[in-house]
């Protein structure tokens, strides 16, 4: 018996391998729903979900919104600009006010690490972390795992190297936790200034040369150079970064096998990844986006319902 996920999804670090596998397995049948003419099932009919985005996001917000709508939930989007947040309301006050309007779930994206947990401990609704600071972005980690599993059939023993700006990347952290729990080997590669100090304690192989990483890995997860977080001169210049760490087809041609290429987006073409690689035959970047909707549907489904007090009221029924 697998331990239920609980009220919230805050990160992959607190989950067990079995729980992660449950989410990935549950995502499989959800893929089919998005291929139907009527892309909708009534599962979350009557549930209200608030997407609370304090940071810019297109892919993740739209992906969550599609996932919610394809499960028939009612959704409301709140962005920090144009809302009472810009008037100085605190996170908890905003959420409690939303909760007073009887909502069931909050999907939160926030610039501060730990914001999702902070909120989850203070409201009754289910909280899903859609990225908090440099901490975790669990649904991105899950969709990366699903895309890798689709391609390789399994995650055990797989060698995945996360390349680039690991320091600022919540995607990297969720990937490292998730991959290791599923029995994969994880490498990281990037300039030392963009690797966290604690990286040696995370049980990963550190490559300082991208050529070595390419020799070792089965798949590369190429991270975005987070230009908006680059205030402190982590790298000399974008051109130099591209020359030393950029993933180019010339570099990949020297690999002993074809490497699967992932990128969580948005891409800086010509910086961390060259266009011919991003659009090349081994790129699964758009598969990741497709899988994102299925994974988020699975998470919403697994966190929803199961209210014991309602179960008592509705005793009997069910069955065949």
């Amino acid at each position, binding site marked *: 018996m697998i331990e239920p996920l609980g009220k919230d999804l805050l990160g992959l670090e607190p989950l067990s391998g079995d729980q992660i596998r449950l989410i990935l397995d549950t995502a499989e049948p959800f893929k089919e729903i998005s291929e*139907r003419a009527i892309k909708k*099932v009534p*599962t979350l009919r009557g549930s209200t979900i608030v997407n609370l985005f304090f940071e810019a996001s297109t892919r993740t917000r739209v992906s969550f919104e599609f996932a919610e709508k394809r499960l028939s939930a009612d959704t409301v989007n709140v962005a920090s600009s144009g809302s009472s947040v810009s008037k100085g309301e605190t996170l908890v006050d905003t959420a409690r006010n939303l909760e007073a309007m009887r909502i069931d779930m909050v999907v939160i994206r926030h610039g501060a690490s730990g914001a999702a947990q902070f909120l989850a401990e203070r409201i009754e609704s289910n909280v899903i972390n859609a990225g908090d600071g440099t901490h975790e972005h669990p649904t991105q980690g899950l969709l990366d795992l699903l895309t890798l599993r689709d391609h390789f059939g399994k995650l055990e023993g797989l060698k995945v190297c996360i390349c680039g700006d690991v320091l600022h990347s919540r995607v990297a952290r969720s990937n490292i936790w998730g991959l290791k729990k599923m029995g994969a080997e994880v490498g990281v590669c990037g300039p030392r200034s963009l690797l966290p100090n604690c990286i040696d304690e995370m049980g990963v192989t550190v490559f300082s040369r991208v050529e070595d990483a390419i020799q070792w890995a089965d798949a590369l997860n190429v991270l975005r150079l987070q230009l908006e977080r680059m205030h402190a001169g982590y790298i000399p210049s974008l051109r130099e970064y591209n020359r030393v760490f950029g993933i180019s087809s010339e570099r990949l041609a020297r690999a002993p096998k074809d490497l699967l290429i992932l990128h969580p987006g948005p891409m800086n073409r010509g910086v961390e990844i060259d266009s011919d690689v991003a659009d090349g035959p081994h790129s699964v970047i758009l598969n990741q986006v497709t899988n994102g909707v299925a994974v988020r549907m699975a998470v919403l489904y697994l966190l929803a319902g199961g209210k014991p007090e309602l179960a008592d009221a509705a005793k009997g029924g069910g069955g065949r």
Partner: protein
Amino acid sequence: MTDRHTIVLDARAMDRTLRRMADEIVELNDGTDDLIIVGIQRRGVQLAARIVSSIKEREKADVPSGALDITLYRDDLQTVGPRPVVGPTDLPWAIDGKHVVIVDDVLYTGRTVRAALDELADFGRPRRIGLAVLIDRGGRELPIQPDVVGKTVEVAKRDRVDVLVAELDERDAVILAGAGDT
């Protein structure tokens, strides 16, 4: 445990029953044209496959078949919570204007069939939807009636009827599990 098991159908009787059901489905449809057989996950899918192969044997016709998982159409998510495993739905045929026959193992409250009807409506508008069940155990909570029944059994509410299929359970049988065995 004070369980008592009664065999309702053994493997041979189950095979015979499924063949008769296949014949009745063809009769109901007046042939095999426009017929689509859809099994409900899980054991309905295996039963549907048996019915399809029986029709092929007797009528020399390949009847298209599909699988439906109704988990996401259940009406009890808010009360009992998510079922751990959702099976695949695989309905690669256009069902508009066709005669769809739903196949399930046990008909009880009718709630599964209600969910299956809702799900089918999301795939198209069949000319007719029929229902074939291996076991009808009564106890309906919704106004739903089967068109083709393998066997009707009268059982108490607390009893359980288990359909076993070789593909999943290593043998074919229908077993009535009495009270105490839960």
